């Protein structure tokens, strides 16, 4: 965060010279969300039909902008076309398969986690203690790189099976 501020100051003097083709955090995370559809298996009953959509939901402010749509355009999970839904409140959360929780208030996150518990939903967030609050996947940054922490107990509870390939490169909570 402090780097960010310093960078901001830097760029106020000289305009953005170091940002070309930047791998913005949002872009990388959007691609991760897409990748999760490849490394996680959802039970068949989480889909109402063979062609029912695979839903990636976002609650809180959408940090991805167009990136998430670009990442999933034309993609399918088996026979299920991937779609993006944005939710404005907890009550609005419908049946989805991946839920990106862009909230930072612990109380609200716990509410979201409680709301989706028992459903086959892969919850993903940036929040510091996300795994501790029962979330499944947390993005964190280490040396300006995006890393992943997985709460395997929560994944099991949601009846999701996560590929060992993903687990092997992630930190296990």
């Amino acid at each position: 965060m402090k780097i960010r501020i310093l960078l901001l100051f830097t760029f106020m003097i000289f305009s953005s010279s170091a940002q070309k083709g930047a791998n913005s955090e949002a872009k990388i995370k959007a691609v991760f969300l897409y990748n999760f559809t490849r490394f996680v298996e959802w039970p068949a009953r989480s889909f109402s039909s063979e062609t029912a959509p695979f839903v990636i939901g976002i609650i809180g402010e959408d940090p991805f902008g167009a990136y998430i749509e670009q990442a999933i355009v034309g993609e399918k999970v088996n026979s299920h076309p991937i779609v993006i839904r944005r939710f404005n409140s907890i009550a609005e959360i419908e049946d989805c398969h991946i839920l990106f929780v862009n909230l930072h208030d612990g109380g609200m996150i716990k509410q979201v986690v409680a709301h989706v518990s028992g459903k086959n939903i892969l919850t993903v967030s940036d929040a510091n203690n996300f795994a501790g609050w029962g979330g499944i996947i947390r993005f964190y940054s280490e040396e300006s790189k995006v890393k992943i922490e997985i709460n395997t107990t929560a994944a099991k509870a949601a009846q999701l099976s996560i590929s060992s390939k993903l687990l092997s490169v992630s930190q296990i909570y």
Partner: protein
Amino acid sequence: MINEPVVFVIDDDIDDQEIFGIALDRASKNANCVFANDGIHAIEKIKNDESFIPDFIFLDMNMPRMDGSECLTELRKIPRLNHIPVYLYSTSLDAVGIDKSKSLGATDYIMKPSSIFELTDILKNIIKTKVFTALMIFFSISMIPQISSGQTDSISEINALKKLSVTELMNLTVTSVSRTPEKLTDVASAVQVLTRKDIIRSTASRLPGALRLVSNLQVAQGGSHDWGISSRGFNGAPIASSTLADKLLVMIDGRTVYTPLFGGVYWDVQNVLLEDLDRIEVISGPGGTLWGANAVNGVVNVISKDAKETQGIFASVASGTFAPGQAAVRYGSHVDSSVFFRVYGQRFVVGSSKFIDGTSARDEWHLSQGGFRMDANLSKRNHLTVQGDVYGGEEGDTLTSNMNGQNVLARFGHTISNTADISVQMYFDRAYRYFGSSRTSYVVNTADLEAQHRFVLKNKHRMLWGIGYRMLVDNIKAPNPTFTPASRTLDQINFYLQDRISIIDEKFDVTLGSKFLYNYYTGVELQPTIRFAWQFVTDNTLWAAVSRAVRTPSRFDTDVTSFTRVEHEKYVSEKVVANEIGYRFRPIQPMSISISTYLNYYTDLRTLDSTGSQLAPFVFGNNMNATTWGAELSATYIATNWWKIKVGYTYLNKKFEKTSPLVLQNHELIEGIDPANQFLIHSIMDLPKNFQLDLIGRYVDALPAESVTGLPTTPAYFELNARVAWEYKNLTISVNGNSLLSDHHTEFGRVLVKRSVTGKVMIRF
């Protein structure tokens, strides 16, 4: 040939490792890349793991500890790796090196490719996996930047990222800083950022109009081409083509544009193609530590997009009731995958306004401008920007004035690591202006060279320092000598150092810094600052700062001889000590709020003092002090994904104190005619069927009359600008209304700002 080749890359450069990883993934879908950070690390790895037998080894020639040839010698001593092809590479090819490496047992010696595409080709040839050729062709097509909109570019970038493995994704360095205003919650100053979207989704057709969208600026239109723009007060009395506001530092792509003539900005000639802007950052409050000598009350930094992000053609034409014609065109393309450029041209014709008494102000004007920008990624770590503009225009007034200017700028940036970089910038700027009414011409040539270095010390200190030299040569020609001497060469040298110390990691930090500025008139000036930022809860930052900034004398303050006695050796810089406290937070997720308050003490403010002499009745002195205090509130609320609202409110109060009885009466009004309260609301709304509705409401308090320049009282006003647009694929058609609520109002003096409606067509492809 080999189903799952293992490629071992020995390179000390993390970025090169990353490039290898991406290129290899493209060259062969099944290949696995294993990295070692240097020769010693590589040998250790091979010795520790008997089962590790790579299919290919790529070895960097230049590495610390153990270089490529030493490492090769060691590798060839290991029996199980005897037959493995080893490719040595380096940034340059020299015959001696090639011969030596071959004699040591290198399979080949290759030149380090400058692009991923070339490397992909090389790897493809080496690995010879023909099966994936089709895939690679797809890649090259999707990755070569095409003449297309930015969105397509980012789609291909996303596609490229999607092909990376999870491990590779995790190894990508996030290079982008927070560029959205929502993420500014942790910045310890009163910064507002105007994004391109904010600007495009407004009725602004030129830069001053865009600055109206920044709630912590006072923007007052004083005529067809005249604008007074200031922050935290001191929006000085209007003069031809500008106002006496002289405490704001304005930069366009790193080039300082306030005039050394009087320290203010000629807003009529500060034009940019709004379409190609990346953002405008506005800081209210002193920025003296890092910026120039004029950043007493604020800094406006206009930043245009990288040429890579403005590929393709953009064209717009507009016509309206006040500005009969505006046209702009831009063409962006590329030489290869690392060199991008754009050229643009624009012209506008603006009508004449009327005075309060109904007579014409005869201030119609027109201006044409063209320019270019080139951005080259010389290598992964080196970036070069070269850009320039040329403009020329003519303005009415009592007699015709004209102005023209040229500038060229080059900026080189070198990234040392994630937290360290160096940048060097140089520019030349010429600005010419002929004032018809006083038959005076003014030309100023500026040469500027700056360098900056940023690095982290012991994980706790984020250091930033820089040096700069600026030379200004001007010449003023007038029928009667108004300025003596007519020509001056002014040197400015500056040095600054800033340390941001992390006291409690991520929670509390202190920034200490100072700028040391040498200028022709007053010698060395010190501009220190201390800033505290305390993030007590995520997205809740409390900050405080004490800073000192100076406004060094301008030609106007020291050399005017037509009606003043010159005592420039006695004239000193104006100074401010600013105390600020601010709070940035998010009460709910989609809303960010920033509150800042300030208490500023100004000393040695410029005054016009009576001399008692008939010939030169006045002399400029420094006989006024002032105290200003106020608050700025701004909030952004993203109500839904189709509705964004920004609101801003500023309050300003001030008190002046004259330190000499000789000071002209009401002098404080020459220095600043400011509203006490201002309110702004900007609503950006996407409607169904590709329609957009954008509204801007502005309330500005009354301004007092000012007798010296004959300014009458300006009543308080509330005005509304509205934009309705329809966007279909590449085409945007909009109707823009300005000041819709009344037929006319005044903002700064005697000139009426009339209701106007403009139709605009834009096309991008």
